[in-house]
């Protein structure tokens, strides 16, 4: 029969101080009297989930224990015994701290379940309850009273002060997908106004490809890390941050790249909290694209029912988002794609007519379908489609250049625009979210749209952060549909 032991106490110290000691899986030889020596095997960090500690107890026993979970937001950790000279079998233990808010004290619960050889149940229950847990309570209390936690090297008073290890994708040269290399790195304590975010999903945008190739070196000095957006949880906050706390689920889009990592510091200005109905992958995949669709429809495109829109790369992430949202607002959308499969997807998302073309020929088909031409063109194609785009534009039309997959767009002569009384725009998403409030407002419209069905969620393709270069290869192959996220 499984044995259960539970002990709890109140410690006269704030939770941050108690947690700083307990979250260090290698700290017991500094405060628990039964432990003579403790070391972490295989050179791992002592707060790294999966790490193994090797105890030599003062009574001569040996125990190897593995850290199973560590939760800084909930102040909770669990571990199990892998091997022990004491006959504790299937031993799994959980340590939980909770703040006593009216007095800066801490509630500490230590519990476990385990099996024993027949006849030794009571003896081993007593050993765990009294020898380990209750003695541990007293020992830690004494350790804190003596201020030993503040003096001992290696047990910093605040865990959040420490730099934390992370995985990061960097490039030390501009070029193809192969320049992206994954390695170990560190993220320091967040600076003033910053949040340190444990990132779970990172959005991949075609813009990342331009930066990777070195088209805008000022935005990505080498060595550099790509990525404009990611979703995850706040780990800790820098000075002056009052609107986020550790544990908040968040997503951000930041004008400085560096999102391709498992951990990142980012200014709280660029971060919004996530509603429960939006998962991490969706948030990371759709924040930048959703904000872009929002300003295109509401601000730049000044959308009107029955307006005629031409959307290139209609089966891409932004394309699908625009098709479904624009259709819901009464817009007629014609799209271009490069394959029949993509055409089917674009139609499913609200495109009323889809042109399949691999060589950027579409103007005649657009004019045939729309009569005069398109009132608004959302152009990610660039130079190879320059003539066709202008030809497809209706009188007084608006040509919005967002990207240049086919090559950098050559300068547009104002006299060219005169012949159609046309408008040309070259917008940047970040200019449409100059303040925290404007970002929150646009993001909220995207979440609301996803929630009430007025935006259909594009398919999401997932790659591990370790496979960032493969994700880029796939994006550039022109065979991908929808959006791509990296999972950290």
């Amino acid at each position: 029969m499984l044995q259960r032991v539970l002990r709890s106490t109140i410690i006269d110290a704030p939770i941050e101080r108690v947690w700083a000691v307990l979250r260090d899986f290698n700290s017991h030889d500094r405060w628990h009297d039964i432990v003579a020596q403790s070391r972490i095997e295989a050179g791992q960090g002592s707060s790294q989930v999966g790490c193994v500690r090797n105890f030599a107890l003062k009574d001569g026993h040996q125990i190897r224990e593995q850290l199973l979970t560590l939760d800084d937001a909930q102040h909770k950790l669990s571990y199990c015994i892998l091997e022990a000279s004491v006959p504790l079998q299937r031993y799994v233990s959980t340590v939980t701290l909770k703040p006593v808010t009216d007095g800066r004290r801490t509630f500490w619960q230590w519990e476990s379940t385990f099996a024993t050889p027949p006849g030794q149940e009571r003896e081993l229950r007593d050993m765990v309850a009294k020898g380990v847990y209750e003695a541990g309570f007293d020992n830690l209390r004494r350790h804190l009273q003596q201020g030993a936690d503040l003096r001992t090297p290696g047990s910093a008073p605040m865990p959040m002060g420490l730099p934390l290890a992370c995985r990061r994708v960097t490039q030390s040269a501009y070029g193809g997908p192969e320049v992206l290399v994954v390695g170990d790195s560190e993220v320091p304590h967040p600076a003033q106004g910053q949040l340190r975010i444990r990132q779970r999903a990172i959005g991949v945008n075609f813009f990342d490809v331009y930066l990777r190739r070195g088209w805008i070196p000022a935005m990505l000095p080498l060595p550099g890390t790509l990525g404009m957006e990611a979703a995850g949880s706040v780990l800790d906050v820098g000075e002056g941050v009052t609107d986020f706390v550790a544990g908040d689920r968040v997503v951000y889009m930041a004008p400085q790249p560096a999102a391709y990592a498992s951990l990142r510091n980012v200014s709280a200005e660029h971060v919004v909290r996530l509603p429960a109905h939006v998962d991490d992958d969706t948030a990371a995949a759709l924040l930048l694209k959703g904000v872009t669709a929002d300003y295109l429809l509401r601000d730049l495109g000044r959308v009107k029912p029955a307006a005629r829109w031409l959307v290139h790369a209609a089966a891409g992430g932004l394309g699908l988002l625009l098709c479904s949202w624009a259709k819901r607002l009464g817009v007629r959308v014609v799209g271009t794609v490069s394959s029949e499969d993509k055409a089917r997807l674009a139609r499913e998302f609200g495109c009323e007519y889809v042109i399949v073309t691999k060589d950027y020929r579409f103007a005649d088909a657009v004019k045939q379908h729309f009569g005069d031409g398109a009132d608004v063109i959302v152009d990610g194609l660039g130079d190879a489609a320059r003539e066709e785009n202008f030809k497809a534009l209706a009188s007084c039309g608006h040509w919005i250049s967002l990207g240049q997959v086919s090559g950098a767009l050559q300068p547009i002569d104002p006299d060219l625009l005169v012949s159609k009384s046309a408008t040309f725009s070259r917008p940047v998403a970040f200019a449409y979210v100059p303040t925290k409030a404007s970002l929150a407002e646009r993001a909220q419209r995207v979440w609301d749209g996803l929630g009430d069905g007025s935006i259909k969620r594009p398919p999401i393709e997932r790659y591990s952060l370790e496979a960032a270069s493969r994700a880029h290869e796939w994006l550039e192959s022109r065979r991908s549909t929808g959006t791509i996220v990296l999972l950290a």
Partner: protein
Amino acid sequence: MIRIYVSTVIDASADSVWGRIRDFNGLPSWHPGIVDSRIENQQSSDRVGCIRHFHTRDGGMIRERLLALSDYEFACTYEILESPMGVEHYVATLKLTPVTDGDRCFAEWSAEFECAEGRERELSDLIGGEVFQGGFNALKRHFARR
């Protein structure tokens, strides 16, 4: 979504404190801010789904529905149906946990709700301070006198 969390340590066993607070119709007998209480539709006060109808000291009428009650976990969860405070989707939990070393227990009272922008601070102070901490202080005084 606003979250409020207040906790304390009461010098009595979880069993005795639970005995004082478990009755969903019993607020006036232990909470200084509440003057009367009744359960609507003659339902039993430990029946999940029952509604308590009570008045605060300043005359405000509040209706709350019992969502969960666990004698095993010493926990009770309820939502506000009607109140003058201007909160939406308000769900609160009051929970006790035994502290094994000594005759005392750890008490937590938490709530989640939404409200009009700009009122977050005022409502957090009212609910976390007067309602939750006020209730805890009364319990602490009561059990200290024994």
